[in-house]
């Protein structure tokens, strides 16, 4: 868990040393990041490559954090021009000593069409500063690790506890750090010695190593608990090729990992297998997930039943929402004749559903028609409260982000809206101090200060034509109040 000024994050971290950009709403929903849809910051390169992010859903919720880590070390370009309106709350640095970011992201990908005329710098990113900043923040959060591996291409500095774990279980380079060295010292030492701590993503690890992993899994499971208590002494002996800081972080991860090692359900799913691109097949040492029928990815962990159900539920929900969005996209408001979801103002991209009929409006149009000032003589009950198209009278308008295609969906939207309102206190009722003009048909919550709900008492009266009507509260004072007989009342 990492606490940052953007909120609290769970999960693991993947770093990309390139600038992260705020992702506009339209793009956010068009990207497929597993079942995560709330992505706000992302590296443009990763988006266009579409490889690192789309195959692993685990780093998404920490992209905020990455933005913060990275940006706090980069000079704000608005500040440079003396015009940053965010002031102290700006996530970029307002310190002239920090370097400005002027790196060409296309060059990182290997090709920039501007060539030598590009206004951005054509250098490969090797960002030790960012890496050390990452390390500090992550240390505070005590879950993840970071390091820089500038040697590779732009995508190599991908570090996450997951990848650490993976490389460990693969018998990869970080094996030397784990207690496995005690379990099977002969097998692991050569690897550890040759490449002490550099952590690579699974794709870089030589293919011959799975045999090590097998031995690790086979012998290890029973002995981890005994070794987990003494990693620190071993740590002091390791050659100091990286910051001590990083060591201690790795250590913590190890301990955390060892505590859970016994349970195979904690094994992460093979990220390559997610998209079906894992070439190792059954020889792969990772757990291969089962196919999710909705999103088409092999992301159902065979051993985590709860997670499977949760994923299936969320996935089906997202699919439904996406379909609804697609249908809603083309629907025009009858009043302004514009597509509701393409309106210029973000706040206006909302439907206003009338309770009585199924004609589409945007919320702003239907609200201004019903609440706006009208020329005298217009009948409130039939004309203004009626649908502008069919004149069916509706007593309330339901705001909704999507349009519906069946009466059931409409009922769902309406009920969801009412449920939401019924959890909010009515400001007219004012916890029993005020008087709500909507009485018992008010959508908001009528609760007293002690949380007790208002009792609903309906008074039925026989009307002149014989039908029964429900009356509002009638008090004797309503009739005599006008006479101002009571000096205290009038005062």
């Amino acid at each position, binding site marked *: 868990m990492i606490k940052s000024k953007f909120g609290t994050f769970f999960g693991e971290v993947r770093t990309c040393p390139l600038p992260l950009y705020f992702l506009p709403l339209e793009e956010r929903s068009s990207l497929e990041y597993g079942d995560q849809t709330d992505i706000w910051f992302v590296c443009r390169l990763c988006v266009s490559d579409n490889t690192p992010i789309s195959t692993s859903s685990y780093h998404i919720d920490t992209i905020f954090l990455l933005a913060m880590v990275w940006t706090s070390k980069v000079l704000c370009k608005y500040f440079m021009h003396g015009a940053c309106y965010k002031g102290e709350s700006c996530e970029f640095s307002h310190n002239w000593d920090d370097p400005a970011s002027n790196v060409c992201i296309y060059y990182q990908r290997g090709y920039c069409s501007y060539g030598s005329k590009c206004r951005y710098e054509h250098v490969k990113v090797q960002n030790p500063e960012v890496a050390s900043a990452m390390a500090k923040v992550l240390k505070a959060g005590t879950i993840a690790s970071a390091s820089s591996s500038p040697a590779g291409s732009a995508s190599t500095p991908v570090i996450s506890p997951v990848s650490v774990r993976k490389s460990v279980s693969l018998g990869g380079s970080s094996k030397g750090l784990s207690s496995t060295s005690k379990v099977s010292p002969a097998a692991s030492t050569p690897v550890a010695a040759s490449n002490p701590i550099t952590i690579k993503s699974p794709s870089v690890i030589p293919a011959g190593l799975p045999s090590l992993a097998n031995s690790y899994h086979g012998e290890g499971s029973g002995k981890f608990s005994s070794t987990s208590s003494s990693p620190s002494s071993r740590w002091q002996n390791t050659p100091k090729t990286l910051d001590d800081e990083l060591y201690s972080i790795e250590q913590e991860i190890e301990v955390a990992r060892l505590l859970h090692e016994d349970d195979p359900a904690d094994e992460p799913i093979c990220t390559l297998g997610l998209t079906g691109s894992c070439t190792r097949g059954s020889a792969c040492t990772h757990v291969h997930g089962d196919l999710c029928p909705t999103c088409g990815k092999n992301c159902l962990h065979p051993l985590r039943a709860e997670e499977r159900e949760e994923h299936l539920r969320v996935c089906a929900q997202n699919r439904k929402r996406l379909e609804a969005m697609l249908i809603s996209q083309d629907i025009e408001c009858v009043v302004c004749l514009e597509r509701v979801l393409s309106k210029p103002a973000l706040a206006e991209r909302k439907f206003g559903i009338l309770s009585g009929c199924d004609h589409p409006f945007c919320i702003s149009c239907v609200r201004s028609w019903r609440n*706006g000032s009208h020329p005298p003589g217009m009948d409130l009950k039939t004309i203004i409260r009626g649908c502008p198209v069919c004149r069916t009278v509706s007593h309330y308008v339901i705001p909704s982000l999507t349009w519906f295609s069946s009466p059931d969906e409409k009922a769902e939207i309406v009920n969801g809206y009412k449920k939401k309102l019924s959890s909010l206190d009515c400001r007219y009722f004012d916890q029993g101090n005020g008087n709500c003009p909507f009485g018992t048909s008010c959508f908001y919550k009528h609760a007293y200060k002690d949380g007790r709900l208002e009792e609903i008492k309906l008074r039925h009266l026989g009307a002149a034509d014989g039908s029964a009507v429900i009356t509002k509260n009638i008090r004797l004072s309503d009739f005599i109040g006008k006479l101002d007989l009571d000096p205290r009342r009038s005062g």
Partner: protein
Amino acid sequence: MASRARLFKEYKEVQRDRGQDSDIQLLCDETNIYRWTALIKGPTDTPYQEGVFQLAINVPEQYPLVPPQVRFVTKIFHPNVHFKTGEICLDILKTAWSPAWTLQSVCRAVIALLAHPEADSPLNCDCGNLLRSGDNRGYQSMALMYTRLAAVASVPNSSA
């Protein structure tokens, strides 16, 4: 400004459907999108059928929440149209307005009004009285005369 966006939409619609609906010709003032002119053909089987009538449409800022002001420029003898000012007595232009109506549909409503005079709420009392007293022939011939006098003469102008 919502009115301007909406009027532009309607303008585009009118441009696209040009020639499809020969009964109504909507023209926008080139300098002011809030001022429109409409030329409507009198409906068949009425004394107005040979005429082409010009309407002046003045769109208020609050449109479409508020109805446009429509009046006859061409003189017309009809119970619901003021003989001198050209003011139209039509509920949808006053109390029964709906923001879903467009200028095109307003013109269509005016044509429908020509075909179905409502003598019980007259703006032209003489015409209303003729109808209410059952003198249909008198109404027909008066309306035909004014159509020929005022509306038919403008046909060459409008088609030119």
